[in-house]
């Protein structure tokens, strides 16, 4: 276990807390979705974005169902499957399946069409859909997916996304870094922001955490800014958290 004596308790002063039960909710039968930020019929002017993070949807798609062919442009779109398999097709000719442990990134740029379906007839697919405003408009569309080593996030923060093609994880057109950690109870670590001025949005995938002086439960979200480091402590066994470091200026 990491020596927490070296980690200051760092009271968080600038933050926004989104408890899980305050998120927007849509149930379309085949799709149940929780929206952290305004999306489709969920409209809340207080919840438009956190910096360049514009969409955080927590989706559950019924067996064999999915999102038919639809367009995107000028958006970095990241999908993280949490359970089940998602079948992807797009106008760039990609036909793939992403599963738990994978991460998919698309730069929509000048425009793409894609579809995402639950590949399985006997199991829900649960995944996070995350949209980030790009730092450059009208780029050439691109698609990427990788399989992550799930062991590499045990009691550590595993980088899953960055702005650099040579770095660990997928890359996008934005100065953003994503990490996932899966911690034992009482494990603590420190996250140091990569770029001055960035903020960090934490989303609890499983279990309970304390970030600085703020307690979080499953599916709570916490945005923090004006800080360089954040202390993260797990308060339950096998607690899992997604950290999204993003620029605060659009």
């Amino acid at each position, binding site marked *: 276990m990491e020596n927490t004596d070296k980690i200051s308790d760092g009271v968080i002063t600038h933050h926004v807390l989104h408890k899980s039960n305050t998120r927007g909710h849509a149930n379309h039968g085949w799709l149940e979705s929780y929206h952290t930020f305004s999306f*489709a*019929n969920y409209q809340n*002017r207080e919840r438009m974005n956190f910096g360049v993070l514009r969409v955080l949807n927590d989706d559950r798609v019924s067996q064999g169902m999915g999102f038919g062919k639809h*367009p*995107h442009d000028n958006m970095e779109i990241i999908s993280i499957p949490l359970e089940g398999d998602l079948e992807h097709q797009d106008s760039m000719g990609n036909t793939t399946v992403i599963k738990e442990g994978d991460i998919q990134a698309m730069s929509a740029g000048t*425009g793409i069409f894609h579809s995402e379906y639950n590949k399985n007839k006997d199991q829900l697919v649960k995944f996070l859909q995350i*949209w980030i405003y790009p730092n450059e408009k009208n780029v050439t569309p691109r698609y990427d997916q990788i399989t992550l080593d799930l062991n590499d996030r045990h009691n550590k923060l595993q980088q899953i996304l960055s702005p650099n093609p040579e770095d660990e994880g997928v890359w996008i057109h934005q100065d953003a870094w994503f990490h996932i950690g899966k911690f034992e109870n009482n494990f603590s670590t420190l996250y140091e922001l990569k770029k001055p001025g960035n903020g960090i949005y934490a989303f609890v995938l499983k279990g309970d955490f304390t970030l600085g002086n703020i307690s979080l439960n499953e599916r709570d979200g916490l945005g923090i800014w004006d800080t360089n480091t954040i202390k993260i402590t797990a308060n339950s066994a096998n607690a899992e958290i997604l950290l999204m470091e993003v620029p605060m200026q659009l």
Partner: protein
Amino acid sequence: METINILYIGRHLEILATVVRLINANANANWNGVGVMNDEEAKEIFLRKDFSLVLLGSGIQEQSEADLCKFFINHNPNISIVQHYGGGSGLLKSEILLGLYNNKN
């Protein structure tokens, strides 16, 4: 109910068609969407119709965007000009509602 005219400009034909279809599908809001792909057509239709909102879509280069914005504001200082991201999916309604809200306030 007053019709709210919305002009969408984008270079990608299929996305343009999708965005206009989605705008016009919001029948309760009485939105009327018109889409064009080139700047001259956009300027010409802007002078003919009373638009409340302009959505700038994909593929518009920086200089073109600056010229269009200047033209629209010169002819209607109260116009809301909004960058549309996402190709017509989940953000469209937010962008339009926020643009119209900012227009009123």
